[in-house]
């Protein structure tokens, strides 16, 4: 059963198309990273599926429609910035979330321990550092133990220590078997935390799938020979090779994972081509990301 189903979602701000017929499915237990450059429509997508922005077109449904209008009670979410009452302390702010979520358990000790805020729980929110605010927001998403948690740029604006703390907390949450949706423009974050990835640019979905499939199904090859034209011709005739490019005398190509570089070398030699340079490596998500969003 899909947790979230998005169909052809569009959102226009005047003439600007922030989202253009975006479709996406998130299954139970996935840790879905929504990856895209700034302004690509990540936050707009999350805003719509959380009911605060009105879509210009298209549709979405949570939990197969089984929860009706109350679906948000089963989702913990931060959008853009941690939003709390600055004049209230951590306990009061969490209490407000608890009342909204209709949760009975008033004990926030474990949550505050998880995000390491127990020592400052009686301080007003406005006295917190950005990292502490972000961590309180993460604690708030866990109230009522929802099945789905959504984070939007969770490490934005944090210092390296803050980033590492938040990432550890997210990994910890993900390991509890929840469905996680995380928007980010930072590849390393998605690569480390997520099981699946959807890449968005200009409001359009460019690619989606398990991180592994986008990460490693293709092999990246660099080849060089004295007779470049002959080598190009040879590579074009190989069905495993998908894309060939010549850069500064070096041929770069992507090939499907069943290609064996040693066999390729032997085959080239038997065709009378001597390779002076052969490197094969798996593609990194970063290159893939740049490639896809180019």
């Amino acid at each position, binding site marked *: 059963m899909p947790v979230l189903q998005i169909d052809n979602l569009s959102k226009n701000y005047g003439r600007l198309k922030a989202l253009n017929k975006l479709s996406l499915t998130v299954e139970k237990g996935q840790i879905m990273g929504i990856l895209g450059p700034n302004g690509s429509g990540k936050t707009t997508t999350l*805003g719509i599926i*959380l*009911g*605060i*922005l*009105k879509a210009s077109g298209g549709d979405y449904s949570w939990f197969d429609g089984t929860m009706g*209008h*109350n679906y*948000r*009670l089963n*989702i913990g*979410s931060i*959008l853009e*910035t941690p*939003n*709390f*009452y*600055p*004049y*209230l302390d951590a306990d*009061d702010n969490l*209490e*407000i*979330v608890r*009342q*909204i*979520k*209709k949760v009975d358990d008033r004990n926030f000790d474990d949550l505050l321990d998880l995000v390491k805020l127990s020592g400052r729980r009686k301080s007003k929110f406005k006295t917190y550092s950005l990292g502490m605010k972000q961590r309180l927001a993460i604690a*708030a998403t866990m109230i009522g133990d929802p099945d789905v948690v959504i984070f939007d740029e969770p490490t934005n604006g944090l210092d390296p220590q803050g980033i590492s703390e938040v990432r550890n907390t997210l990994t910890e949450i993900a390991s509890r078997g929840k469905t996680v949706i995380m928007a980010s423009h930072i590849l390393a974050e998605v690569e480390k935390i997520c099981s699946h990835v959807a890449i968005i640019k200009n409001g359009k979905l460019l690619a989606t799938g398990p991180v592994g499939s986008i990460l490693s199904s293709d092999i990246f090859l660099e080849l060089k020979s004295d007779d470049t034209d002959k080598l190009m011709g040879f590579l074009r005739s190989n069905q495993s090779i998908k894309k060939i490019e010549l850069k500064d005398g070096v041929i770069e190509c992507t090939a499907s994972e069943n290609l064996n570089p040693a066999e390729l070398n032997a085959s080239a030699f038997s065709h009378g081509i001597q390779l002076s340079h052969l490197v094969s490596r798996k593609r990194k998500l970063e290159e893939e990301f740049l490639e896809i969003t180019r």
Partner: protein
Amino acid sequence: MFRLIKLEWTKFRKNTVIQLLILFFFLFFPACLYFGTLIPELPSFLPSKESFFQFPDIWDYLGYAGNWIAFFFIGVASVYLLTIEVSNKTMRQSIINGLTRNEFFLSKLLSIIIISAIASAFYAVLGLIIGLIHTEGFDLVAAFDNDWAIARFFLMCLSYTSFALMLAYIFRKSGLAVFFYISYVIIIEPLLRYFIIERVEKASFTRYFPMNACEDLMPLPVMRYANAIPDNIDFAFLLEYKEAVTATIIYLALFISLSYFLFKKRDI
């Protein structure tokens, strides 16, 4: 419903601005009476100023003072109740956390109803105490013989607060909404009325303008005597209570439905 009231209470019980506005309301309301004692001796065709502190005139006099105090303090508080949630993005977060738009709207509506009810209860208690002190003889029936003054006061508070809340829904920024609220009530509408009256002879329909109708629920007591003159000059200054009540209820429905329509339609 109780859940929403409790939620609003948790949100605002420690808010300094709300605390101060309400405190000032409670302090300045009775303080206004002091100025009543400073009024110079009135012309002989008017009642003596002592009667302002006695039943039944105390209700008019106190109500008129409360008119200004409520307009300012609880009106501004109503704007603030919403705009603070917009500027802190907690309105957004409340919806994200699972409150439906209807529930959020209802929570604000309940807040202004409760604030208006508390203000009216204070008016009732204050009027009763002062009246009992200054009126000879203890007669509760006579004390409450006041043309539904407490209900009119409540309606007046509700009209100010719902107007203020509507402006908050429209402008979303505290400064802008408060500025428009105050300048509409004390400058824009009176000016509009003045110019229309100038152009259109005896344009007494301008008395039905929203904030004037609301003010006429608790008019300046002396105006009642001016209202007795129209036979000669063929012009009524004030709305009858019935007219003011009807007009205000219609405006109230308008303010609330417009707010609701805007809130449901717009992005948050």
